[in-house]
């Protein structure tokens, strides 16, 4: 289902599993990055490697996108062909996440206005908070070349 919905492909597809969905409201997802993952294997050479914060942000963004797609599909609406683009991000990192950790994101749609969706997320490893992230995202404009009208 994830690969059917999200346009992301390996190695950039980060969401491994959808644990829970509340249509139009919240999604809980999981990712686990192996030690030899191209984005973490040399970050920074420790054992195990440390997951970069930017990947946690991307994980949240993909989860938010998945929430929108599942919600649209469930409601019978058409799937938005143009991908979402991150417009603003605020994040605070409070604990490390490492390769091979089961990283869980609880992502909630907290607001939407003028075509921009605001999501708040808590990312955890073994129920210990790793980071809090807030993202603003909108749909890519036509001039980005995706071409298909919504």
């Amino acid at each position, binding site marked *: 289902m994830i690969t059917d919905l999200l346009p992301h492909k390996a190695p950039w597809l980060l969401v491994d599993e959808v644990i829970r969905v509340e249509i139009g409201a919240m999604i809980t997802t999981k990712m686990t990055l192996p030690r030899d993952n191209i984005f973490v294997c040399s970050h920074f050479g420790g054992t195990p490697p440390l997951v970069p914060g930017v990947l946690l942000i991307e994980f949240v963004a993909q989860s938010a996108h998945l929430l929108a797609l599942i919600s649209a599909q469930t409601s019978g609406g058409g799937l938005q062909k143009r991908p979402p683009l991150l417009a*603003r991000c*605020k994040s605070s990192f409070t604990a490390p996440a490492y390769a091979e950790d089961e990283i869980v994101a609880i992502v909630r749609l907290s607001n939407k*206005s003028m075509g*921009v969706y605001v999501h708040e997320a808590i990312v955890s490893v073994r129920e210990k908070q790793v980071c809090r992230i807030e993202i*603003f995202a909108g749909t890519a404009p036509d001039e980005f070349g995706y071409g298909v009208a919504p």
Partner: protein
Amino acid sequence: MATISLPELRQIIEVALDRDPGDISLESRLYEQLGFDSIGMVALVVEIQRRFGVRIPELEVPNLRTVQDIIVAIEA
């Protein structure tokens, strides 16, 4: 009906812009002087809703051109 002071509104604008807006007055123009863009306006709407529980209708957002307009919209 919410009432709002200029210092408090300045705080909200700072959150929305994600930077210090500098000196502001009621006449300060949001786009031309304070540097608001579309995302900043969304952040402004979100922050106002968080602080005051007031939701500014989307159709009214393009009419917010000055700091005074924001106060009027909140207190309406």
